[in-house]
């Protein structure tokens, strides 16, 4: 078949624009560091967790689609791979979090942690900066290695049509996914839950896993709808591929709601002071309004719309919903993190808006650069023929 699947030239223009926006907003954001140091790091953490989530969520979906197979995975694989190749960037961007840990994490303050014996022990054994940094290094080592292997074998598979690479990728995907869920759980405890060293929730890690997978999936849908309007993807992608992605998004939205509600229900039923202290500030005043908005626009509204098959088959409508979910993912993350810094009431700073745009610009520039480096379809995948065989029937239509 006509085998030219290189990315459209618009991806290059995308990369430039993202880079310009990223640099301009980074400068603006850096100014904020001099104006209000602690606010800078608070905004930085939320933006960082958001964009890292898209990179790591992409890694999770990449491993998942190698395990399940199917046309939807083949179509989006190169987008996912490009996103996983941004993980080294996120490792570099983690350094400011270590540098600003004193502004972010209460467990870096000795007087805070000497309040109770339990906190003292936590600080001594687990929540201290050397161990925290070492753990982060380990997480990134595991993520970068997994992403590196998946990308390497995928490129080898492009070069030589050998079933060996397909098998290798499939083999690593199961253990890799297990390891990813564990490391993301630990990372979410370290990076987000430890903002409140007294509080704990056992489903918190899974909540991050599904939240990051959901934001990655919504991002992939957005990229796919952009690519589908252009050669070469316009030859291949069909409405039922979008329907599959939409179904998966519906499942992720439901799973996210399930985890989020489970945590709430258990805390609400137990009604214990050490547990409800996390929810109390988040359900009052402005934070409470955000919580209601999250229930409606992160769950109810997308859930009801995604039930419709015709909406899922319509790339233009689906991408708008994906955009809403990406936005609500950020709002939800902000709602989970920011109240720790201002529990007395709703508070938003201009840096909370600038930070995700700055980091997003840089991230998207690297993503677009990586996306343009490889063909958009893995032509030597065993499923390639069956996916492509369906395509001409549609083209006729």
């Amino acid at each position, binding site marked *: 078949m006509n085998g030219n699947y290189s990315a459209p030239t618009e991806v290059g223009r995308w990369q430039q624009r993202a880079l310009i926006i990223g640099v301009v907003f980074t400068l603006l954001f850096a100014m904020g560091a001099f104006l209000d140091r602690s606010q800078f790091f608070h905004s930085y953490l939320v933006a960082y967790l958001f964009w890292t989530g898209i990179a790591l969520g992409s890694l999770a979906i990449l491993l998942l689609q190698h395990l399940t197979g199917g046309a939807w995975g083949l179509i989006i694989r190169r987008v996912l791979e490009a996103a996983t190749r941004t993980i080294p960037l996120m490792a570099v961007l983690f350094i400011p979090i270590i540098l600003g840990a004193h502004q972010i994490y209460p467990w870096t303050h000795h007087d805070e942690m000497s309040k109770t014996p339990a906190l003292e022990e936590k600080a001594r054994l687990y929540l201290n900066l050397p161990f925290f940094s070492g753990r982060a290094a380990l997480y990134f080592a595991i993520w970068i290695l997994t992403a590196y292997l998946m990308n390497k074998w995928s490129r080898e598979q492009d070069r030589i049509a050998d079933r060996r690479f397909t098998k290798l990728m499939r083999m690593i995907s199961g253990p890799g996914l297990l390891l990813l869920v564990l490391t993301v759980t630990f990372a979410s405890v370290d990076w987000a839950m430890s903002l409140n060293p007294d509080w704990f929730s056992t489903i918190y890690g899974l909540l991050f896993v599904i939240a990051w997978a959901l934001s990655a999936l919504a991002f992939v849908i957005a990229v796919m709808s952009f690519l589908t309007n252009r050669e070469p993807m316009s030859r291949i992608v069909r409405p*039922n591929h979008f329907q599959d992605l939409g179904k998966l998004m519906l499942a992720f939205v439901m799973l996210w709601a399930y985890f989020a*509600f489970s945590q709430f*229900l258990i805390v*609400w039923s137990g009604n214990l002071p050490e547990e409800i202290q996390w929810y109390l500030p988040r359900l009052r005043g402005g934070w409470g309004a955000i919580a209601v908005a999250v229930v409606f626009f992160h769950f109810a509204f997308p859930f009801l719309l995604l*039930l419709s*098959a015709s909406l899922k088959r319509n790339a233009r409508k689906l991408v708008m919903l994906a955009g809403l979910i990406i936005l609500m993912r950020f709002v939800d993350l902000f709602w989970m993190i920011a109240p720790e810094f201002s529990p007395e009431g709703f508070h938003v700073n201009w840096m909370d808006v600038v930070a995700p745009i700055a980091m997003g610009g840089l991230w998207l520039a690297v993503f677009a650069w990586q996306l343009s480096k490889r063909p958009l379809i893995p032509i030597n995948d065993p499923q390639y023929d069956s996916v492509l065989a*369906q395509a001409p029937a549609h083209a*006729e239509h």
Partner: protein
Amino acid sequence: MADEKDKPRTVEEDGKDDTDISASPRLPASMSPNRHASPSLHQTSPRPGVTVGPLYGVMAEFDNPSNLVAAARRTYEAGYRKINGYSPYPIEELWEAIGFHHTRLPIIVLVGGIIGGLGGFLMQYYLSVFDYPLNVGGKPFNSWPAFIPITFETTILCAALAAVFGMLALNKLPQPYHPVFNAPNFKLATRDHFFLVIEANDPRYEHDEVVEFLKSLEPKEVTDVEV
């Protein structure tokens, strides 16, 4: 269908293949099960065995799915509406090709889900607030967060039941008899052959035209299907 009964139907053979279906031995029309009594049993065809009684429709046989989809698409474009495709496995394009866009099933499932959700919630509300109010840890009787899991379960249960029984009802299943099984080759529809039927109740149905039209789609075979 009544007007079909008094006209005998004739199918010309394809001519290119002697082993084709219309020449193969089959039950005399009068012996086929469930046949409607018909006055048109006399044979007017030059070939015995190809003239049949009242018809369910005309069937074309294909040996691969893309031919079936292409043929179905052309049939729909030619203006026929009462058409149906049969295949050993689901073909995604086929339902689009025969113009089968919507069923009422989604709305049935939605209604089932809403009834299940409301029913589940109201049941718990009635039990906890009116029927047997219990003070649990000082929480209000209407402790809605605690009702959500069961509300969710009853929603899924009723939606799933609505889906299964709605599907059966819309397909008019169970259906122990269906005319397409009268076509001798139709047993291959569960193996490796693909069939397209233009039903006799199509508003544009004109038997000879339909036969000619189906032949123009280059099927392996065109057969009449008795009721």
